[in-house]
């Protein structure tokens, strides 16, 4: 006993504990890179870079944005892959119906994302940033609600369901990054490189405007996303039976 008191460091020996910890660490590091850069875009880059005078603005965009967007989109991939792997390990441990759970989960997110694509075509919603963000919050709120209703299985824990809802938001954000924000920004960067100092053509500026709406909605969605992530282990609000 006395010897133990003097040597208090003892690594857990189970490989699953170690694997989970490694996944969690990768998830946290890549997640911070991803969401931290989303905060940089929302709080710093989007409001300030357009105020810079030419030619500095073009040079700043050419040097900062490709690097920031590279780390942004790939860390998003890593964060979601590590997170989903972790979630699947939990589902397996709980003997969840894996195929059904993943299919329903993915179907709900894809549906919400499809609704967002339709919303982006409605001028009445895209004219006001506030209206668009509120509409998206409603759609993903419904997505989370349906997950809570449809995903439970016998023996489902709060942790698995809280990650389903929070990770559902994360997957929705990943689709936003790769399907909307990055394609629009890639087009913008290519335009800037080919036509220095010129404002983008109307079609491209319209795409950029929509991408910025989606980016702003993503920013607000990180708040509930991180709540559910933290709640998974520390705030059990979901009760079975």
């Amino acid at each position: 006993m006395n010897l133990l008191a003097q040597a208090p460091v003892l690594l857990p020996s189970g490989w699953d504990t170690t694997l989970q910890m490694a996944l969690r660490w990768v998830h946290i590091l890549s997640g911070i890179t991803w969401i931290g850069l989303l905060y940089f875009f929302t709080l710093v880059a989007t409001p300030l870079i357009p105020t810079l005078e030419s030619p500095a603005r073009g040079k700043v965009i050419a040097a900062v944005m490709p690097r920031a967007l590279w780390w942004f989109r790939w860390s998003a991939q890593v964060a979601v892959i590590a997170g989903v792997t972790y979630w699947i390990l939990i589902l397996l441990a709980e003997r969840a119906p894996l195929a059904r759970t993943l299919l329903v989960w993915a179907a709900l997110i894809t549906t919400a994302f499809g609704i967002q694509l339709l919303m982006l075509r409605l001028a009445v919603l895209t004219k006001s940033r506030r209206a668009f963000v509120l509409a998206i919050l409603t759609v993903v709120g419904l997505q989370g609600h349906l997950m809570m209703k449809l995903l439970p299985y016998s023996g489902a824990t709060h942790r698995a369901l809280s990650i389903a809802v929070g990770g559902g938001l994360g997957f929705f954000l990943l689709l936003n990054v790769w399907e909307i924000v990055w394609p629009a920004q890639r087009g913008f960067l290519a335009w800037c490189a080919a036509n220095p100092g010129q404002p983008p053509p109307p079609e491209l500026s319209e795409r950029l405007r929509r991408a910025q709406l989606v980016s702003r909605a993503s920013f607000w969605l990180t708040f509930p996303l991180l709540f559910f992530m933290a709640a998974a282990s520390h705030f059990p609000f979901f009760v079975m039976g």
Partner: protein
Amino acid sequence: MAEFLSLLAQSRILPPTDPGTILDIVLRWIHFLAGITWIGLLYFFNLVNVPAMKQFDAATKGKYVPVVVNSALWWFRWGAVVTVLAGFIYWALLLAKEPPETIGRPGSLMGGVMGWWVLTVGVAWFINYFLLKKVPAVTKNGYIVALIVTALALGILWVVVYKVMTYEGASNRTIAIGVGGGYGLFMLLNVWGIIWPNNKRVITWTKENAEKGTPIPAEAAALGRQAFFASRSNAWLSLPMLFFMAAASHFPIFVGG
């Protein structure tokens, strides 16, 4: 299908209502949001800003630094303050429950642990500050800085685990936060003691240079270099820091003295 429908009826949302659990999750949520802002911008500075700045001429820097870098540094340094404050309160709430009643009076060791913890991190940081600011040979070579910061980080780990938090009934959670939070406090001191004060002066000079053509003093290079090394040290320190933060609840490595 019938089983599925009966599950629907059985599952429900029932959030915990005791104030302690609610306060914990609120602190944790604030800690997450502020921490992502802080460390996310730290990664922005290290992964994006440093290489991007190398491509800029003086005129572009004069436009970019006082506007974009200045604003990013605002969110960065205040995010750091909010993160550490929320984390520290959370840790204090845990310390107030230790040692458990079966062993001693809960909270009786709180003052001592916090005092020694602050002193340990403070001394380690001051050594780092002194070497970066006053010994020019140190900032000539990045490997020397890396060696110093590694030694100081191991020192903090050793003192916190083997000297400060050795009381009977110490939990893995409090010890792991003691180490990870110790690195966090070290990083906060780097932000407010080196990165921000140095950058503040460089930003003012860069702005005046762009607006009025006043020359940038030669001192700026040394200040920028110190800030760069403090920022790079923080980026590396964030890796063990986040490991210990996650280990607090999910990877019991400290069995307690």
